[in-house]
């Protein structure tokens, strides 16, 4: 007999997790995969504390999910499932408040403002209250790549949300960050595609922020918390391999500011 029983300590002593385990494979993210002789499988976040090979016992200590502070953030999404607008089409952006692309209920907004970049300056946009949700209606006269952001000030806290929205079929080069206090910006604007890496840069007052934790998620995720956490390199850049349909949201915090960037995908 060479299989073992696996026990786990979840904080109140060892309890049997799985019997007759004959395969244990440590995985990424501190996960441990195990399979027993009955073909049952489990993946659990834990570390191996002790292996009593003579007694066929493996003891694990559960790794508790780190409770990241759930803070509300703002984000913008175009009101189209098409990834872009066509010339002459009404351009509407929806403004959300919540976390992990899951809007909160009955959110209240304080000191909300929205802007669009144009000719080197920011022009303030009117924010519509549409049945309790907030919308930015940009009209039908737009063309090219629109750089829009919103900000909310609540006491010492500031929430920023930015997005790039394409009107028509354009390729853009030389796009510049808006110069927000804290900003996530794509390093090379192009059509983002599934199955490809997408690179962003974190800037604070225009300067790259190395070592910043950037959270990333996508519309419709089943995860309770952000599924991806990236760390920026010396140039303040981080990359994410895109594996989901729809829009992605990147989020970063520093001091009292939380800033998001919505990556709009056409598929």
């Amino acid at each position, binding site marked *: 007999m060479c299989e073992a029983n696996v026990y786990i300590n979840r904080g109140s002593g060892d309890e049997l997790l799985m019997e007759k385990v004959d395969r244990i*494979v440590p*995985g*990424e993210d501190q996960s441990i*995969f195990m*399979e027993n002789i009955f073909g049952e*499988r489990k*993946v659990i976040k834990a570390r191996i504390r002790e292996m009593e090979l003579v007694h066929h016992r493996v003891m694990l200590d559960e790794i508790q999910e780190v409770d990241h502070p759930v803070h509300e953030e703002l984000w913008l999404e175009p009101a189209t499932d*098409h990834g*872009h607008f*066509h010339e002459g089409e009404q351009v509407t952006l929806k403004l959300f408040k919540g976390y992990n692309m899951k809007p909160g209920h009955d959110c209240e907004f304080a000191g909300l403002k929205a802007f669009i970049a144009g000719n080197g300056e920011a022009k303030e946009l009117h924010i519509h209250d549409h049945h309790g949700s907030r919308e930015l209606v940009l009209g039908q006269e737009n063309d090219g790549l629109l750089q829009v952001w919103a900000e909310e000030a609540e006491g010492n806290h500031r929430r920023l949300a930015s997005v790039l929205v394409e009107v028509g*079929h354009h390729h853009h080069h030389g796009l510049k960050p808006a110069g927000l206090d804290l900003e996530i910006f794509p390093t090379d604007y192009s*059509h983002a*595609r*599934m*199955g490809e890496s997408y690179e962003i840069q974190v800037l604070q007052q225009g300067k790259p922020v190395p070592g910043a934790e950037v959270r990333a998620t996508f519309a419709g*995720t*089943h*995860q*309770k918390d952000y*599924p991806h956490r990236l760390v920026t390199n010396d140039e303040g850049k981080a990359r994410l*391999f895109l*594996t*989901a*349909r729809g829009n992605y949201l990147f989020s970063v915090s520093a001091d009292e500011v939380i800033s998001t960037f919505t990556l709009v995908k*056409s*598929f």
Partner: protein
Amino acid sequence: MCKNMPPLELAIQFHGHICPGLLIGVRAAELAQKQLGVGQDNDEELVAVVENDNCSVDAIQAILGCTFGKGNLVFKDYGKNAWTVISRNAGRAVRIAQKFGSTAGPASDRFRELAGKPNLTQDEAAEKEALIGELFERIMSMPAEEIFTWQEVSAVPPERARIRKTVRCDLCGEGVMETRTSIRDGQTLCPECQLK
């Protein structure tokens, strides 16, 4: 659709969801295109002979345009992850086969287990989503040499599909391809009515 969709997106849209089998098919289809110097089939210039009927074949259909309806998709029920793509114009064919175990591992095992469960809990759905992401990046980033073996083969493409005459079944009254009918007691019958 405003722009030509890239192969991966074509395949996902056609198949309806993302899974490792489809992604293997995407890689196989793109490898066949590269090896034969071809794009997507328009009118039976390409023929695919597939040795399985799993998710990968939807990628072959979507990306190469070798489809069941056009008759340039030949199914051989061998249960093998292998695909032969024939270019009539180039007079060349390549057979691509997945290396045994090339994508195997705990993540793949666990994904298969979850994919086979009819009702997933919220935690299991989240776990499956994470596994798809992990396998997605791995399959799409692996060098083709690590996933597949391939070689040029001499394959004779089937005849181009013919358009046959449609006749009326004397029993059910529905139209049926003439070559599929038989005459019984002076009546022209479709295959279904022949069994009645």
